[in-house]
């Protein structure tokens, strides 16, 4: 297997055409070509997908190993002649290096890079990564605002600037609440700031209209024009109603100020005039008012234009101004944010990305590089300890501009490399670009192809390995030929670029299948069907088909999680016995178990919270409180203590048990409790013990609600991306107006050739924008893009189905204007966007309209339950008896006698230097005594001198220790106890020992043992001396001390008698009190 030149490839993979297959095979091909696995990097978007890439590589390799035929087939696919054995080698290599593989999400790759450059980027090396929209990130944002509000941190003049900026940004709206508004501004515009962090390009007239705007010119006096127009129109003797219209408009327009509300007074005629702009400019216009044409003279045209211009100018200026105000707010915010990131080491994934982009004002544009000789670049090969030669990017259409900023340089280096030993491979489907709202820039797919024209081979894939023929035919019918009269032309052009008619791979896809476009009929009074009627249709379909019993998988795909929840609720009630599951991120707070805990936690910190208290009183915990005599007066302290001592997880677990003790929970309740415990475990890791913070954490905590096997799965279309179902039901097909015209927040205009951002503006209302050539072309581009998005969402929805696809729409009413997605579907499939009626079908004994149909209606009748998943073996449950089971081994409690028996003391003593002084003193005395062999033969001054040199005690303490030591050794008792007995004597000093007595394992230390042995060295007698530095001033104290230490010495005696093998009677036990110089014989 030698490595030839490896091409750069872009794969445009339509839905179901085997994107992961392509990626995995590319990977295997590289491996087979001898590329070490750690030189390949494969990036995708979700963590799940990253896991799947690795697994599918392994799976394909396993398959290739399984037989020579498979190996051959694989060899053909990757264009090498490899054998089973070769693939086994590759599998081994892959698994052996699994820790060095770079198969991950783009996010975690970026975070990984950031973490290897902490010093360069000025961040803490143990920085914490926060979810972009988790509770912690939100709290961090709030904290920044709070610190801007705090005059102790921010000087008043900065605050005033901020106040000004806020007023400017919210011009005309005297907001009474601040925090929410600021949060909204920041939430909405921060992204724009990151893309375009240049003050001069925000709300800058000259940047937007380099040649000057036709509207932002000086005008003749508006009031004069207004009265002149009014008079001149009066002379025209218009009908009263028409004149009335003119009058209100002229009035409102003349008085139009930056803070004026946009009323019907203005809008009615303004709109008409704007539509006749060219005529007005020409000097002769006919304005339709109240279905009558009102002809304007040249002068009247001029005057009307003045009024229109005045309104336009005012609105545009307001927009420019507000935009600058918004910039100002963001800029200040960003300064604080930057400090937070750098100083506090808390980053969101987005922040990590932003740190590595050139656009970042604060990092100074750290660019990643693979070339060690590039200046001012972060050289990554060395830091991540490998050379990333081969890049594989998945779902490329979802890459955002910022993400590409991070990778661009690295990719460029690869693409410009001529050695042929590096490669770039990306796969995606522009038709599935449904993440535009969170920054995905689908245009990158084509832009890169263009930029490296000829270097990258484009490989389109449009054969579906998933969907059956009727489905593919339907998809072709819907998307193959887009209606030019409805959709924006550019959208159609863009779509055509990526579109190729699909076909399905016979032999792989299911043979039988069905597609239907269904509608609930209008009721007898002709009322339009409601959402409920559509859900009812879903229920009937499920009842009719009984998919679960047949082992068919079902996905009900909707637009929002809210609809999802509603449908699940509805279906659970109407399709009893069928397992219906809402899938996706779900909060855990909406149930009685978690909410009662939230109240408990709130009450812990806020006993004044009567809402929480009453809630608890209503709950079963009320009985627990009564039993334990807990009231609102003492509860907080008890709760806070538990939380602070044991953490939230233990707290929830304990109180969960108490709750269960009062009221056994059902399975759902138990699972919610479990979720809460998990959440608490995660939160505890932050070390934070603040109840409010934890409550907020729980409120925004989300779990993956995963479907158990054999369930009808309800989820959003976005979540369904990458999945396939036997049956797909789409009950929520209306959506945005495909023809555009929706509200636009903010526009960042980009250069056509370089794609660089040029300027930003909070868009004025549509009507105003439409009158300006620059803004209207931006608005149009926006509409085109959003229409494209909408097509993508529909495309993803339709292509999830393997065998059956049920699209459920409803009659929108005769007057419906908007061409929403459902109307588009009908137009494409039926030829009429608003068909009133159609052929009827019976589903589950009810009649419905079937507007379109393909395939076999009873396709499912032959599907048996053969595909039913095998049920798992009964699980064994551990019972409480286990702890009483006999064990093979014995276990002993471990006792350290030195720490036995001490008396109760005030907590304050443990923070008192003197307490520790006396302990230090005690051990110092021990140390000195340890050095004494025999009192009669040891030169204590030598001992003292040695000790003094090595001891790190403070000077005066040293002196005290020495003084006591000298004194003790001077005492007769001590002299006697430490002198050498006659005979064959052995002396132990400081000897640790281990013994098992009375089922306890004791680890002790003999201070001093003197053993007298016979001639054969057998021990005859022994004496234990234990040094005590306690103060024993009088006989009573002595008595107490002896009482305290007796058990310890007796234990020591036992140990020694066992070690030496002599009778206890041959032992003497002595306590030597160093302070009094007395020795007590036990």
């Amino acid at each position: 297997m030698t490595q030839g030149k490896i091409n750069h490839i872009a794969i445009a993979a339509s839905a179901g055409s085997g994107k992961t297959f392509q990626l995995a095979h590319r990977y295997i091909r590289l491996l087979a070509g001898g590329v070490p696995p750690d030189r390949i990097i494969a990036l995708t978007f979700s963590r799940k997908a990253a896991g799947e890439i690795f697994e599918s590589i392994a799976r394909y390799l396993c398959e290739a190993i399984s037989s020579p035929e498979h190996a051959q087939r694989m060899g053909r696919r990757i264009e090498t002649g490899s054998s089973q054995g070769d693939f086994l080698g590759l599998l081994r290599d892959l698994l052996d290096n699994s820790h060095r593989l770079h198969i991950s999400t783009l996010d975690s790759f970026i975070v990984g890079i950031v973490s290897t450059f902490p010093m360069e980027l000025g961040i803490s090396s143990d920085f914490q990564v926060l979810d972009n929209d988790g509770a912690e990130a939100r709290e961090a944002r709030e904290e920044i605002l709070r610190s801007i509000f705090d005059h102790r941190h921010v000087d008043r003049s900065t605050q005033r600037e901020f106040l000004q900026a806020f007023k400017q940004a919210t011009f005309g709206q005297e907001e009474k609440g601040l925090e929410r508004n600021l949060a909204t501004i920041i939430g909405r515009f921060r992204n724009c700031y990151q893309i375009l962090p240049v003050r001069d390009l925000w709300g800058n007239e000259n940047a937007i209209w380099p040649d000057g705007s036709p509207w932002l010119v000086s005008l003749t006096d508006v009031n004069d024009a207004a009265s002149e127009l009014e008079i001149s129109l009066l002379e025209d003797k218009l009908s009263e109603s028409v004149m009335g219209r003119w009058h209100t408009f002229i009035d409102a327009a003349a008085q139009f100020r930056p803070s004026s509300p946009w009323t019907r007074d203005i809008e009615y005629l303004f709109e008409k005039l704007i539509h006749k702009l060219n005529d007005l400019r020409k000097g002769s216009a006919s304005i339709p008012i109240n279905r009558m044409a009102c002809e304007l003279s040249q002068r009247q045209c001029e005057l009307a234009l003045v009024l229109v211009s005045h309104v336009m100018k005012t609105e545009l200026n307001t927009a420019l101004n507000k935009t600058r105000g918004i910039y100002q707010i963001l800029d200040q915010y960003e300064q604080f944010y930057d400090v937070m990131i750098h100083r506090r080491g808390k980053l969101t994934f987005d922040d990590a990305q932003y740190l590595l982009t050139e656009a970042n004002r604060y990092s100074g544009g750290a660019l990643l590089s693979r070339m060690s000789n590039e200046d001012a670049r972060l050289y990554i090969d060395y830091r991540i300890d490998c050379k990333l030669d081969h890049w594989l990017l998945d779902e490329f259409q979802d890459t955002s501009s910022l993400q590409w900023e991070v990778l661009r340089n690295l990719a460029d280096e690869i693409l410009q490399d001529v050695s042929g030993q590096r490669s770039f491979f990306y796969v995606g489907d522009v038709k599935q670009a449904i993440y535009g709202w969170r920054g995905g820039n689908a245009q990158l797919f084509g832009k890169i192809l263009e930029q490296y024209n000829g270097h990258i081979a484009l490989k389109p894939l449009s054969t579906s390995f998933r969907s059956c023929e009727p489905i593919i035919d339907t998809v072709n019918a819907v998307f193959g030929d887009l209606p030019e009269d409805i959709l924006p032309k550019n959208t159609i052009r863009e779509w055509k670029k990526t579109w190729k008619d699909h076909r399905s791979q016979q032999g792989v896809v299911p043979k039988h299948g069905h597609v239907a476009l269904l509608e609930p009929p209008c009721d007898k009074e002709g009322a339009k069907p409601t959402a409920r009627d559509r859900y009812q249709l879903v229920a009937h379909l499920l009842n009719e088909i009984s998919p679960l019993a047949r082992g068919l998988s079902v996905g009900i795909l909707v637009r929002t999680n809210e609809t999802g929840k509603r449908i699940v609720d509805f279906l659970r009630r109407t399709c009893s016995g069928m397992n219906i599951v809402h899938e996706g991120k779900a909060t855990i707070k909406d149930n009685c178990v978690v909410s009662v805990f939230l109240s408990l936690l709130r009450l812990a910190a806020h006993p004044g919270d009567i809402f929480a208290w009453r809630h608890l009183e209503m709950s079963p915990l009320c009985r627990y409180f009564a039993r334990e005599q807990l009231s609102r007066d003492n509860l907080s302290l008890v709760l806070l203590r538990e939380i602070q001592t044991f953490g939230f997880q233990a707290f929830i677990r304990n109180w969960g048990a108490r709750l269960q003790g009062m009221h056994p929970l059902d399975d759902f309740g138990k699972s919610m409790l479990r979720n809460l415990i998990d959440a608490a475990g995660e939160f505890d890791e932050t070390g934070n013990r603040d109840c409010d913070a934890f409550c907020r954490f729980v409120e925004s905590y989300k779990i993956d609600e995963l479907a158990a096997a054999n369930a009808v799965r309800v989820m959003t279309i976005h979540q369904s991306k990458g999945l396939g179902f036997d049956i797909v039901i789409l009950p929520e097909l209306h959506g945005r107006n495909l023809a555009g015209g929706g509200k636009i927040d903010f526009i960042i205009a980009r250069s056509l050739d370089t794609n660089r951002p040029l300027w930003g503006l909070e868009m004025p209302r549509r009507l105003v924008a439409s009158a300006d050539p620059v803004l209207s072309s931006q608005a149009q581009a926006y509409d085109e893009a959003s229409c494209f998005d909408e097509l993508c969402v529909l495309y993803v929805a339709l292509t999830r189905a393997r065998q059956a696809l049920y699209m459920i729409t409803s009659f929108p009413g005769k007057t419906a204007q908007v061409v929403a997605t459902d109307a588009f579907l009908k137009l494409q499939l039926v030829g009429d966007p608003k068909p009133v009626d159609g052929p009827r079908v019976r589903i589950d004994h009810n009649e419905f309209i079937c507007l379109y149909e393909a395939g076999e209606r009873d396709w499912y009748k032959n599907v048996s339950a053969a595909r039913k998943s095998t049920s798992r073996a009964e699980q064994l449950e551990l019972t409480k008896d286990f702890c009483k089971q006999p064990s093979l081994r014995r276990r002993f409690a471990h006792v350290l006698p030195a720490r036995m028996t001490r008396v109760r003391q005030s907590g304050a003593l443990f923070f008192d230097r003197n307490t520790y002084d006396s302990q230090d003193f005690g051990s110092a005395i021990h140390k000195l005594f340890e050095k004494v062999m025999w009192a009669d033969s040891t030169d204590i001054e030598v001992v003292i001198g040695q000790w003094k040199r090595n001891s790190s005690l403070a000077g005066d303490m040293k002196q005290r220790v020495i003084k006591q030591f000298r004194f003790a050794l001077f005492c007769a008792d001590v002299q006697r106890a430490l002198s050498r007995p006659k005979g064959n004597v052995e002396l132990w000093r400081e000897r640790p020992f281990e013994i098992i007595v009375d089922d306890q394992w004791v680890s002790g230390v003999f201070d001093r043992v003197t053993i007298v042995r016979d001639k054969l060295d057998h021990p005859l007698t022994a004496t234990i001396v234990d040094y005590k530095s306690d103060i024993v001033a009088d006989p009573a104290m002595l008595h107490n001390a002896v009482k305290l230490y007796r058990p310890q010495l007796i234990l020591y005696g036992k140990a020694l008698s066992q070690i030496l093998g002599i009778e206890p009677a041959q032992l003497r036990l002595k306590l030597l009190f160093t302070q009094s110089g007395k020795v007590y014989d036990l």
Partner: protein
Amino acid sequence: MSVERYFLGWDAPATTKVCAFLLRLPSLSSADLKNKLIVVPTRQAGRRLRGALALHCAARQTAILSPQVVTPTFLLHSDNPPAHVANQAEIRAVWAETLLEIDPNEYAGVFSAYPPTQDFAWAMHTGNMIQELRSRLADGGHQIADVQRELGSLVQEPERWKNLARLEGAYLESLRELDRLDPLELMIQQAEKPRLPERIETVVIAGVPDPTPLVLQALGHLAEQITIIVLVHAPENLNDHFDSWGRPITGKWRKAQIDIPDASANIILTGSPTLQSSKVLEVLAAEVGRFGPNDVALGVPDRSVSSFLAADLADKGLSTFDPAGKTLREHPVYQLLEAFWMLANDSNYAALSGFLRQSDVLRFLQASCNVSPRNLLEDLDVFRNRYLPLALEDVTHRLFCESVNKTENKQFTDLRRATAFVQDQLDIFENNELDSALRSLLQAVYKARSIDPNDPEDKEFIAVARLVEGTLNQLVDEVIAGIGLKKRSAFELLLSRLGEQSYYPERGDAVIDLEGWLELPWNDAPLLIVTGMNDGLVPDSQPSDVFLPDSLRNELGLRHDEDRLARDVYLMTELIESRREKGRACFIAGKRSNTGDPLKPSRLFFHCADEALPERAQRLLTVPEEKRASHPSTVSFLLDVTPPADVSSDRMRLEELPVSRFKDYLQCPFRFYLSRILEMEEPKEKREMDPLDFGLLVHEALHKMGKSAEMRNCENSRRLSNFLCTQAKNWVVKRFGPTPPLQVEIQLEAAKQRLNAAAHVQGELVADGWEILESEMEIEGQFGGVAVRGRIDRIDQHRKTGRIRIIDYKTSDQSQVPEKAHLGPLSSVVRDYAKVKVGKGEKRWLDLQLPLYELLLPNGEFRGGMQVGYFNLPKAIKDTRMVFWDSLDDELLQAARICAEGVVEDIRHHRFWPPALKVEYDRFASLFHAEIGDCVNVRAFKEFLEKQAT
């Protein structure tokens, strides 16, 4: 002298084997190991060895004189370290100092892209990072300078290493100036001439698989003086797989196969950490009858599994012990210090309440200052919501300053006492050395707490106190003084040092230890279950590293990935082999971390024969993840909404009713019951004025205008505006002080704009002949025998026509239209009295406010045609204007009266059920997660209501 290597075999666990070996040593007279130094891999291993020795001896009815059992680094520390070795606090302080003094521009190799803000926290943290690097290099006997000198040409970023070496030099220089030794340097020197405690005659290296190069160096030197016995937990026939120090040879083990008996049962793949924990229970359940609780060893290389395991096992009556201890951060004493640090560093209000919410502080205040915890905590919330204080000084100013409102002194008694304590402690902090200030705080707080040395929790307290004490002592050293560390920096340093330390709760009667991977070989329990067998954990690896990438570690002879892999292949084999005969070793891998990151199974699983590999890979990589069953949502328990004991029965008796309450009842009788009878108010945490405050502010200003003889007839809108704005400002100053927080200022600004617009409207009104008659007029009347009270914002009269206008100020964001606010479309469950004919159709009453105003006005006092309406002051100030309800005629008024009487009647008869199905904004949404009727105990409530009605 010599190095003797013995192969112990691995047919039993290491502990058993080593123990048996030691007790068989020929030199043993009875069980006397006192002259032996036993080196074991970890502390926990040492503990297990000593326990096993004791047990062995007990079998022979004897005890044992323990050998000295140590971990490898013992050999690098001198028995008697010179007194002037720098301690950890000093090291940290010196590093911080060094980094604060440099010019980062001169170190572009290190701080290239982003110029650091050289504050203490940064300096300390960066210092730690470099010191950590030094300590890892020291394992191989290197310093940074060595790397730069010896590998300068080889390392990829020479400039960076040069810079780092310079920083290291500066740090060492500072230490020298302070007459302190760097412990790492000392350690490297020590390895050159290691010294043992006097009585030691033999060193036994017992199953230490990966001593550091520096330890080996020390051993090499020791071997020249003394006998070293190396014990290898493996059979003799593998002698070529280990070097002379008993280390598994990387080349031999790296690719070795691991024979896992019954792999299908003993390799378990599951999902998240909590599922791993459940799997452990399943394995245990399968072994009931064969093994008992004392026979179980649990490995938790992934710490995130351990809390779930501990809890799950506790549920089954099995207590666990974590030998890794707890970090000080988890202990309340640390939390107290941290809370105090927040206060001392920036005494903002959050820091104050954080400190006062420490349960230890609350207990102290309760015991010593007669403070009720409940009242104090309530005070904190009320005070915050009322005054939006930024900092402690705002509290002390308001509560202690004589000149400020005296009434507060009565109201916030508990808060005042608590703040006095806080202020005292802060004063002490300011005026004393750090250590005495903190001792004083801790002594004060814990004075009344009686510590029982036999109580497990108190034992922890003692252990923690000891650590705090020790660390505090390190900080009073003259070195710290010499550096001139500021008090707050020293405090920060203290906390950071404390936060890294651990304490070890007593094991008590814990049955099962939750051990790390490296501890496991020393656990001799026959049933071994290892969780967290995932890549990155077993073996652990870090291919990318800030300073030492794997390849560089390899070059420097430091432990690198291959070594770890080889070691762990050996360890896993050892674990399995020692249980092959009589036990079971079972390995669990997760697919997902706690936070949802995918995990890969450990590479060790794939150390199998080629034939088995595809099957195993299939199984471990492609098995779908196990999921926890999801249950359809249910209501797990019903809420009992009958009034609890602490709701006085008086509240159920209706004696009077404010006008504003009618709206609540009309909206939903049950929610009316919750909010008005049970007084359930939504909790608030204000950080700015809420809409209520804002309304109050605007109302007050307008009221002042209505009361001012001069202003009520003024038609000059400029003057009116000035007046109103001044009033608004005064109100704010009165409530929030002369320098209100910025957010309040912004809100005041908005209020002024709205008032300014109102002034224009007012000016025109006066010019049109309208005159303010009354402002905030109290009214009262009887409906169905109940007093109904209200307050009319204002009444105007026209000078010429005498017409009367009843006006209500509205400060909501959007303009309100009276008719729409009072009458709404009919819905299915409306009581008859609330229905009203309007024109051709029928509507329902939503609110009765304006009609009631008109009805309640004293008869005869106000004559002439009456108009009722709103004075809107919305956020779009262009919309500021009066809006009247001109269609409110007598017929409607009468309908309103009937409705009011109906409401009163219903409330008097406690008709609080059923609830409305839908309300516009449901403040009780957090209580009820399904239809209210499905969430509360309806029967009990109805019974209660019926009883009340009779």
